């Protein structure tokens, strides 16, 4: 009788165990769907993203063994962004025989799945419902979707950070140290912020290994400095953000869901007295503030935001509502809000730049020609084989301020001689103008500065014109470009 009862209990436990695991598999399935969907939503053949194209280009060059110096950025330069990701793309592409773009898609997908599993495992000591809720919020967060669907240099270090954190929590320090040796290949700032996070976490939670971590951190910083110096890599800063750039629902290319952000803010009301969560709130606030200057920290911050949003949601879920109707409706509204943000973000993928027409237009320009455009178009121009006057990779450019000033003079001056002198100075042969440049990014009026000169001066010849793009050839004195 007792045996039968025990068997029955163990069967129940077994079923419960698998039911719990089954729920996580549903989250995993959701993650797979979410990471596959951008491919379906994006009808363009070209991949979305901007700095991803820098890595596509460099990876292709690495694969072909032609990377001695960057011939395209700023008309030619000797330094690079941290190239860890480009080496991974090139290496995998070389051994698999697949093209760099496909390799990037596959690797990002796998890294996304891996990161979700690691995040779930890191939360091992928390309530099972909490882990499921938090993982689901993470999967539907626009920053996560962007990170693991659009080529970028942060996906791998984010995955590595999660892996090292998980290994450290499980006291597998040797493995953690081994993996941390890879971090310096993904940029000095990456290492700095990840290291500082680990140091503060260990100082707060595991004081006995703090000193060792500090020692390893310094060694890694030395390695990173050595790599940067030896390989000519510069510190890749980010873009400055405004407050609304953090919320993807307001239009930036990545950010948090508005409802997730709201949950975190409400969490402050619930948890401000609880010491347990103070570390995450303080870390979150510090990262949030630094993200105003370095945009890519959002990818790291996103994990903390989802964790805190999960806490708030669980608090609301477990709360004894005076009106159960209002309670249920409020929770459903929150769920709908979070899902809605994720789904609507996915549906925007087709609108993400660049579109296919851009590369069709750029085919009109011969490879190797120097092209003037807004710097934000730089990586796409370089990917299609054109030299740029400027691109978004500003670090390590000695004459950056002069170029910025000259670019302004070219864009806004109506003095043809001055414009021609500046174009000659940088050997600019083509001018590429997109719709955004005409609609406020550079000009606000149709006859402003260079736009006026292009229309009236015989020194410019239109070679491509559509609603979205215009390309002009600059004819030098002898009539050739």
């Amino acid at each position: 009788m007792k045996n039968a009862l025990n068997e029955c209990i163990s069967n129940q436990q077994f079923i419960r165990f698998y039911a719990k695991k089954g729920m996580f598999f549903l989250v995993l399935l959701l993650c797979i769907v979410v990471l596959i969907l951008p491919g379906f939503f994006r009808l363009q053949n070209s991949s979305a993203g901007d700095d991803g194209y820098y890595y596509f280009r460099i990876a292709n060059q690495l694969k072909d063994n032609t990377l001695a110096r960057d011939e395209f950025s700023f008309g030619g330069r000797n330094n690079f962004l941290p190239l860890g990701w480009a080496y991974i793309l090139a290496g995998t592409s070389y051994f698999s025989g697949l093209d760099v773009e496909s390799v990037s898609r596959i690797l990002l997908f796998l890294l996304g799945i891996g990161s979700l599993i690691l995040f779930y495992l890191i939360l091992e000591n928390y309530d099972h419902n909490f882990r499921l809720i938090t993982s689901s919020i993470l999967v539907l967060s626009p920053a996560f979707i962007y990170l693991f669907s659009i080529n970028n240099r942060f996906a791998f270090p984010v995955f590595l950070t999660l892996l090292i954190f998980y290994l450290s929590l499980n006291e597998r320090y040797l493995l953690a140290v081994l993996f941390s040796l890879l971090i310096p290949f993904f940029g000095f700032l990456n290492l700095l912020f990840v290291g500082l996070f680990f140091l503060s976490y260990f100082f707060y939670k595991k004081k006995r290994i703090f000193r060792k971590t500090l020692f390893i951190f310094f060694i890694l910083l030395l390695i990173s400095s050595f790599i940067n110096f030896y390989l000519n890599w510069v510190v890749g800063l980010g873009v400055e953000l405004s407050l609304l750039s953090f919320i993807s629902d307001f239009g930036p290319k990545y950010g948090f869901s508005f409802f997730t952000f709201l949950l975190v803010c409400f969490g402050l009301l619930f948890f401000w007295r609880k010491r347990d969560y103070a570390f995450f709130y303080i870390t979150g606030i510090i990262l949030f503030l630094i993200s105003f200057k370095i945009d890519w920290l959002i990818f790291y911050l996103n994990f903390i935001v989802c964790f805190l949003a999960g806490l708030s949601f669980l608090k609301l879920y477990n709360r004894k509502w005076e009106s159960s109707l209002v309670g249920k409706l409020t929770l459903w509204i929150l769920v709908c809000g979070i899902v809605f943000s994720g789904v609507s973000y996915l549906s925007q993928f087709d609108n993400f730049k660049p579109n296919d027409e851009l590369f069709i237009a750029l085919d009109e320009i011969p490879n190797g020609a120097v092209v003037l455009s807004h710097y934000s178009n730089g990586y796409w121009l370089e990917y299609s084989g054109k030299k740029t006057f400027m691109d978004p990779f500003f670090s390590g450019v000695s004459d950056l301020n002069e170029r910025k000033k000259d670019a302004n003079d070219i864009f806004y001056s109506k003095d043809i001689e001055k414009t021609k002198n500046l174009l000659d100075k940088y050997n600019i042969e083509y001018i590429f103008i997109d719709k955004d440049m005409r609609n406020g990014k550079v000009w606000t009026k149709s006859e402003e500065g260079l736009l006026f000169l292009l229309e009236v001066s015989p020194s410019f010849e239109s070679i491509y014109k559509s609603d979205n793009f215009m390309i002009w050839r600059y004819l030098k004195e002898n009539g050739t470009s």
Partner: protein
Amino acid sequence: MLNLKRETWILIAIFFLVFISRLFFIFQSPTFSDDSAYMTQRYTENIVETGESLKYDPLSYGGRNVIYSPIFDYILWFFGLFIPLSLVFKIIPQLFISSLVIIVYLIAKEVKSNEVLALIAALLSGFIPIIFLETLNSISIYSLIIPLMFYLVYIMIKLERDDTLILHFVIFSFLLAALHPSVFLLPLALIFYFMFMVSESFSVKTVKKELMFFLMFLVLLFQFLIYKKAFLEHGWDIIWGNIPAGYISSYFSKVTILDMLYKVGVLPIVFGFVGIITGFYRKKENIFLLSGVIMSTLLLLWLRFIEPKIGLMFLGVALTVVSINGLDYFYNYLLKTKIKKVDKVFSFILISGIIIFSIIPSFMGAYSTMQTSQTEEDISAMNWVRTDSSEGAVVLGDVDEGSFISEYGNRKNVMDPNFLLAPDASIRFDDITTIYSTKSETKALDLMKKYDIKYMYVSDKTIEKYGEIQYLEDEKCFKRMHKQPAVYKILC
């Protein structure tokens, strides 16, 4: 005969007084005084014809996608099932806004258990000049939003004693949240209320806190669902609804104290502020809630996040309700003086005040509002456009006549006041201003070509605004097709 209390009969009388006064004015004109009314009319007619709300408007801005909440149009359509649509547009908004007197009466009774003062508040609310004028002879969505919002405020007050109203709150919250972005004001008001309560060390009933969270999330979700595309397109600027730079100054004009006194009325403002002060002094929870509405409106007005006329409407109602606290204070003060027959003196002052500062300004304003509506001649010009102009042609009119052209002329306009997601709204506004005000015929013709304009409508209002347009005398390029008001065919 219904067995109703005397106060109820008086309340019904006040309701009919307000409703009939409104009907008296609106039936003096077959048209509306506000161009956006024609847009609502057209969108509702589309629901009647197709059963669906309009997603692509082929006539607005020469054809464009529109985003808006169609709930109000569906409500009008629903009434249209029982009475002719032309009557629905005229009567139903007036019925909605007239119901405000009943809601104000109910709230006032909760604030101060004094039937007479509650009836006075109801009467005052029926003749708040800004509400009377802005919702008169137009199909204004605010005629529904304002009563609904204050009904929710009433439930919030009632919840202190009666939990059965939770379901009412939930149902009406769904309706309100789906109606219009201006409903953000209510969650904000509840946050202020919460802050006042905490600052005075009062505890807020748990169910009220829950409803506050619920409403806030609900409003955010609905507005994100409806206006997602606009959020992505305009970002933060969605608050100003893509209003052209040249037009924004007339939208967000500064609100002066004198403006407030005239548009809201002297009595609500004077006694309203006295009511707030005494309410805070006596720590009355209901006054905290109404002060929340007032504070949130003032904050949004100060930040220029809400159109002054809209803000003043909400402010007017909230101050009217709170003013009974002030009136009560004033009455008690009179009792302490040596004035004889205090009741009669108080009643005389009050009734005179309501007539002088609320009813007369409302009626005078209503008279001038009716003068601004389109005339029979305007309709005849549009009838010509509808029947004799070429199908699909673009007809130029001033911005505030765009929807009128589309509704009555059934032709494409260059621009109308529905700016959200409108293509190049600022550029179009500048171009229209240039066409009507320039002396250069070439410049005007260039711009007309840009928008493929085939006809130009020059109403008396347009001439009043821009002056005579001299280049129209060139008969080679402009042929007058309709005499008064003028419709020109562009020949060049």
